């Protein structure tokens, strides 16, 4: 046998820590989360008018490509690279330099660092894709690309660092966000509000009926989201263990209960239960359980999901009252659902579920709710403010909105020279 050099010995020890089951699980979870973005494309694509179906699908789909590149070049490094003042990771890992097959001691100590990186990549991809629902049917494609790139860099990357990065100020404060209630859902929800305000209402607001052109497509998309969300939440355990199973189960429960509660509310409010309501409720439940999925038990999940359906239905109603045109209800579902979920984590978290977390208010630790509240507030202020600034910058550079004539023609023809349907 060749004599082993000191660094080889160290590498071998690291390799021994690696767990094949965990690695397989994280890789499969990454693939599951990847599927959520095309799923979202269908979810959104079915809800717009037929002339905008490709433009809407394209906005989610191309983000999968664009943000993957951003992530491997500088996004991962800014989010998870060596900390600078709790605010941002450095550029040390630019282009994945130093991110290899060995585990990182903090980020999934039993899986290859690359597996953790690609799992997180899928989160970075879907988050800006969620925002596209707010400006659907009226944003220029080039401006959208520029905005998305800027948003990922100046909003998502810092936020991910605050919450999940080693040394990030929110995680040091003790804020609990298992799979992205603040980073993914509150951030996309409030950015969607900023976008709806800056981009403005669609042509014909108030007189035109914006009727979804293909709800079966939307339901299919919602099913893919539900499916992929198991990777999103259970995968966030970063190990194939009991915590992953617990996160999987509460995710499923919350989604199911929220689908029922949304249906019930609209049945009472509007007289009929709708398929779009069932799908919307399911997504609302998934959003709400996300931050607490690794900290709460099944009974809490029923409560979190049950209220998510009601709160998000109310959140969607609000846009009509306040008059902003958030086309596909990103604010109502992700903003309201994410906020409820983050606060609910401060209510229902239990060390019996995850000893690495904290107890919530209902388990004898009222202080946790305060910590959650601070993290929610900071996310809202930061994401809303930054998004306003970025949109103004983009508007100044390329102009943000299509011409009235192009909007009338539809995004498919005016932005892409093609049609979704040839009949």
């Amino acid at each position, binding site marked *: 046998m060749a004599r082993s050099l000191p660094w080889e010995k160290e590498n071998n020890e690291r390799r021994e820590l690696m767990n094949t089951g965990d690695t397989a699980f994280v890789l499969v979870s990454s693939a599951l989360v990847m599927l959520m973005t095309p799923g979202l494309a269908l979810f959104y694509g079915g809800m717009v008018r037929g002339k905008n179906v490709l433009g809407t699908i394209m906005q989610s789909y191309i983000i999968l490509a664009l943000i993957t590149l951003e992530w491997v070049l500088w996004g991962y490094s800014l989010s998870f690279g060596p900390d600078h003042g709790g605010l941002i990771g450095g550029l040390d890992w630019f282009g994945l330099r130093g991110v290899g097959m060995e585990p990182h001691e903090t980020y999934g100590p039993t899986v290859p660092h690359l597996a953790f990186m690609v799992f997180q990549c899928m989160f970075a991809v879907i988050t800006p894709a969620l925002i596209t629902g707010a400006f659907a049917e009226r944003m220029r494609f080039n401006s959208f690309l520029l905005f998305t790139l800027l948003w990922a860099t100046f909003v998502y990357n810092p936020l991910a660092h605050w919450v999940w990065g080693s040394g990030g100020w929110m995680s040091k404060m003790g804020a609990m966000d298992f799979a992205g209630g603040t980073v993914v859902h509150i951030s996309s929800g409030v950015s969607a509000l900023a976008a709806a305000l800056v981009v403005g209402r669609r042509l014909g607001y108030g007189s035109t*009926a914006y009727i979804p052109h293909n709800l079966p497509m939307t339901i299919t998309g919602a099913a893919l989201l539900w499916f992929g969300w198991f990777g999103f939440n259970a995968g966030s355990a970063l190990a194939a263990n009991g915590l992953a199973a617990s996160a999987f189960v509460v995710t499923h429960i919350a989604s199911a209960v929220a689908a029922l509660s949304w249906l019930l509310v609209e049945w009472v409010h509007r007289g009929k239960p709708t398929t779009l*309501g069932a799908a919307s409720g399911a997504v609302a439940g998934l959003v709400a359980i996300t931050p607490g999925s690794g900290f709460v038990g099944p009974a809490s999940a029923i409560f979190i999901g049950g209220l998510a359906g009601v709160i998000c239905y109310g959140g*969607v109603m609000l846009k009509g009252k306040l008059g902003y045109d958030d086309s596909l209800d990103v604010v109502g579902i992700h903003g309201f659902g994410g906020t409820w979920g983050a606060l609910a984590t401060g209510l229902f978290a239990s060390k019996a579920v995850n000893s690495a977390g904290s107890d919530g208010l209902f388990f004898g630790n009222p202080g946790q709710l305060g910590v959650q509240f601070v993290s929610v507030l900071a996310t809202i202020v930061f994401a809303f403010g930054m998004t306003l600034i970025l949109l103004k910058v983009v508007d100044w550079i390329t102009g943000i909105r299509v011409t009235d004539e192009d909007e009338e023609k539809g995004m498919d023809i005016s932005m892409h020279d093609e049609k979704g349907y040839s009949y």
Partner: protein
Amino acid sequence: MKKVEAIIKPFKLDDVKESLSALGVKGLTVTEVKGFGRQRGHREVYRGAEYQVDFVSKIKIEVVLEDELVSDAVRVIQEKAKTGQIGDGKIFILSVENAIRIRTGEMGKEAI
């Protein structure tokens, strides 16, 4: 020669077509149309937002006939398309000057 245009409820199309065929009608044209009459539109609700849809989907049948067939055709259309509810539709009868079969150049009665 007359053209009979009938706007009917979509689910009545098969019945109407069968009975016109039974009368000896050799061809007709069908179009999916939208419109409004005394039947009000309907309500649609998406995520709690309510829309009034004013135009109702109907089927328009167009058939060109010899004069002697017209009264029978109108009778069976009315019989078969009728539900007794508002929104059953209307029948229009128009005069036609001539008809030409493109393949052969036949004209008038021979062409229909």
